[in-house]
């Protein structure tokens, strides 16, 4: 009997859990869609906006959940455009072993680049189409709960950085893994100038050489395929490598390439590497890559700008970045006073002041680069979206957009960057923006205008599921040394 009771309780709990996953209709009442329009009601059914109407005009379905949105403003949901998180690999597939090892030399021997099997095979295996399978039953990307709290409804998950990293997955962010909805499991391929100690390539120039070689291989496979299709007989079937076919998709512009870079010089090298191809390039990097904005505009490349807040200690600069001020250190009682009459002590103090000035100058430059990056990209006509960093927090995204607006970026541009709504970026065709009937119900509910620093996100709706955010966000930038 006792066991039966436990079973019933467990079943009830399970039903409760799954109940959260089922799509109950939702009515949001008295919410303002724009600041100057009267409040409206929104009915959400099956994850879609089913109807909207003046306040009080929509009848409540019998099983609908009601949320009072009085005083709230309907705002956009955000996209975190680069989250390094690989979906769990698919089951081992012998077909993944694509590169022949027959030509591997015996020791001692000289290796041709073709024989750098490990590098090449690993790179190509990661581009294998089977890699794009996403098992959402077991995949729970780290940090999604925090992203939801920051108003981020979608994330673009790219594999952990490798020479060729594989497919990017665009999905809704959910705290519960089973409810994660994949919008596109193969939106683009990740590339990076990755180097490894003791293995080829161990240098940046080596990584570029590997990419050049892979591109040459891919072009050969394509040429072979074309020759076979154009000639009636005599051309044997090429040894098809799916990874190379995927690279050809990138070189032919049929699939975007996301290239991770850390500096503007790397960005320029990548642009040079893909010059002369039809590749649709999206560079992923910190704000300093925006210094190469002119070259990016010329190459029609897009950018995913990581909200990598500079580490600053200067109180003025921290205030400018809306970061929390570090606690003041209390002076120790009985600490020896410095004798400023002592010339050595004076010289030491002068030196300390000089060093502080240098540090401040460096921090100021870093802050300028950080703040000007979105404006610089916008002025050059480079489409861009924001992303968080591994060290940062979800609310960095909105904070960076607000700072960019303060630095002169237009609000529509900042909004596009926050939501991935730039038509020139690959996210645009996948994400449904705007609270229109028939669209996916994904938006935020704010207690004020989006660009006001005092405005908080009160609730987020992702695919029709409401999550009320009650916890207060912690003060930003309180980590050690002001890092984020």
């Amino acid at each position, binding site marked *: 009997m006792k066991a039966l009771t436990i079973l019933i309780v467990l079943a009830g709990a399970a039903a409760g859990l799954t109940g959260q996953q089922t799509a109950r209709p939702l009515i949001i009442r008295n919410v303002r869609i724009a600041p100057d329009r009267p409040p409206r009601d929104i009915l959400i059914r099956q994850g879609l906006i089913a109807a909207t109407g003046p306040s009080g005009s929509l009848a409540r379905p019998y099983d609908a959940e009601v949320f009072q949105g009085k005083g709230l403003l309907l705002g956009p949901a955000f996209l975190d455009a680069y989250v390094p998180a690989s979906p769990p690999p698919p089951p081992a597939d012998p077909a993944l072993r694509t590169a022949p090892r027959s030509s591997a030399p015996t*020791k*001692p*021997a*000289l*290796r*041709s*680049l*073709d024989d*750098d099997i490990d590098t090449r095979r690993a790179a190509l295996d990661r581009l294998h189409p089977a890699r794009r399978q996403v098992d959402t039953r077991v995949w729970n990307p780290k940090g999604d709960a925090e992203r939801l709290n920051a108003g981020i409804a979608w994330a673009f998950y790219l594999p952990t950085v490798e020479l060729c990293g594989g497919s990017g997955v665009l999905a809704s962010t959910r705290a519960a893994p089973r409810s994660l909805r994949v919008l596109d499991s193969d939106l683009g391929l990740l590339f990076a*100038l990755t*180097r490894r*100690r*003791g*293995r*080829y*390539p*161990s*240098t*940046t*120039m*080596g*990584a*570029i*050489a590997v990419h*050049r*070689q892979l591109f*040459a*291989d891919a072009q*050969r496979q394509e*040429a*072979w395929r074309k*020759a*076979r299709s154009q*000639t009636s007989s*005599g*051309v*044997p079937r*090429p040894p098809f490598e799916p990874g190379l076919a995927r690279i050809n998709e990138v070189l032919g512009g049929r699939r975007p390439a996301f290239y991770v870079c850390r*500096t*503007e*010089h*790397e960005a*320029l*090298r990548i642009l*040079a590497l893909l010059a002369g191809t039809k590749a649709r390039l999206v560079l992923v990097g910190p704000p300093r890559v925006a210094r*190469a904005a002119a070259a990016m505009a010329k190459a029609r490349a897009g950018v995913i700008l990581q909200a990598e807040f500079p580490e600053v200690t200067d109180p003025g600069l921290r205030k400018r970045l809306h970061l929390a001020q570090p606690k003041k250190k209390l002076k120790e009682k009985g600490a020896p006073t*410095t004798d*400023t009459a002592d010339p050595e002590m*004076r010289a030491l*103090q*002068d030196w300390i*002041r*000089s060093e502080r*000035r*240098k540090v401040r*100058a460096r921090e100021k430059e870093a802050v300028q680069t950080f703040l000007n990056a979105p404006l610089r990209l916008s002025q050059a006509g480079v489409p861009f979206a924001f992303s968080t960093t591994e060290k940062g927090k979800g609310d960095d995204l909105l904070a960076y957009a607000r700072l960019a607006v303060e630095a002169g970026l237009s609000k529509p541009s900042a909004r596009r960057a926050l939501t991935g709504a730039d038509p020139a970026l690959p996210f645009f065709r996948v994400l449904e923006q705007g609270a229109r009937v028939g669209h996916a119900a994904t938006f935020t509910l704010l207690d004020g205008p989006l660009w006001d620093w005092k405005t908080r996100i009160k609730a987020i709706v992702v695919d029709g599921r409401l999550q009320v955010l009650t916890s207060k966000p912690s003060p930003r930038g309180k980590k050690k040394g002001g890092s984020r």
Partner: protein
Amino acid sequence: MNRLAMILAITLAVSLPVFAQDKGWGSGNVLFRDVIVHMGTATRPFLGDVWIRSGKVADLGWVRDVPAGTRIVEGRGELHVMPGIIDCHSHIALAGGLNEATGPVTPEVRIRDAIRPDDPSIYRALTGGVTMAHLLHGSANVIGGQDAVIKLRWGANADGLIYEKAPPGVKFALGENPRRSNRNTPGADRQGYPRSRMGVEQIMRRAFQDALNYRDTWQAYKREIAEGSGHIPPRRDLRMEALLDILDGRIMVHCHCYRADEILMVMRVAEDFGFRVATLQHVLEGYKVAEAIARHGAGASTFSDWWGYKFEAYDAIPYNAELMRRKGVVVTINSDSADHIRRLNIEAAKAVKYGGYPRNLALQLVTLNAAKQLRIDRWVGSLEIGKEGDVAVFDGDPLNDRSKCVMTFIEGVQYFDRRKDIRERAKTHRPPAKSEQEATR
């Protein structure tokens, strides 16, 4: 009062262009007047003018009229003007590693893909009158990566630094480095090949033989195409293509070496495969085989007094440069260091003082001869009419260790000014303000 204001206004009007020139760093038009000119050739230094117009040397001697807007640097017979110094062996301005040491043969990697234009070493080199540098791959593998020749246009991006007129080169390395590096590479096979100097030679020979086989494959394919039977091109191998470019002389070889036996070995391998070694780098035992080097046609880029840092660098003498020159070898002194690059004129002076090198030819060790070794002497390396206006200005004889480089120009555009540098330094290292001093009391 009005007179005072007028005097002030006139003073300001006169001084403004001077400040503007300092800040603007010129447009490529500059006249060095009343300076002691070191042409960088065998010509003796002379008192005269050097006129650079649109980035090129337009006239030497006594220049009477120059167009309006030309910047004039008054030497008053005290400033010495010499061609910009060219460092024939450097590893500055590189990002992401300079040794692709994961295999003994990696000529497909290119230094030009990893140039870091914001490396402060570029500016530091400018302070020593250096205007060009030959950036080489490291010496950890037998056949390393391809090089890049750059002009030190501080502030330009990587593409803006690269001197496209310079033919490409590749770094070879002999001796202890490729042996030791191969053994110590983390993750690499500790019994890796090569472990001996004999192995180094065989690595080269096998690499070139593989490249020739690769060429045969392509030629066979081309024959099939001509006959109408071939459809499938062989796989392109960038490594083999780079090796073929070496064999065909399209990529010059700059070989890191020390010992005489190895120097002979690498020249023998090159002759067997039908190409020439362009320069021997370090080449501390070059004096022992200078005739053979001259016969082969290789240049030698060495140190004036830097040796003894490993076994193969023990048997070195200060007369190395002079002995090789006497046998007809084109000799240069290089830095191989982000520190020494600032004092290459002193390195040349040391070759005179300790090595018996002719004084009138000493500056060529770091200017014209370097340009010859890099096959760019048609454009740079000396102050001759029509050549590019790369100039270093010293406040005394460049071969005097008390002299300082005061200005550096690249194609007539100023990239370093000692006075301005000192002013800028004073800004960052300014003494504390009075109020700060009082506050600390």
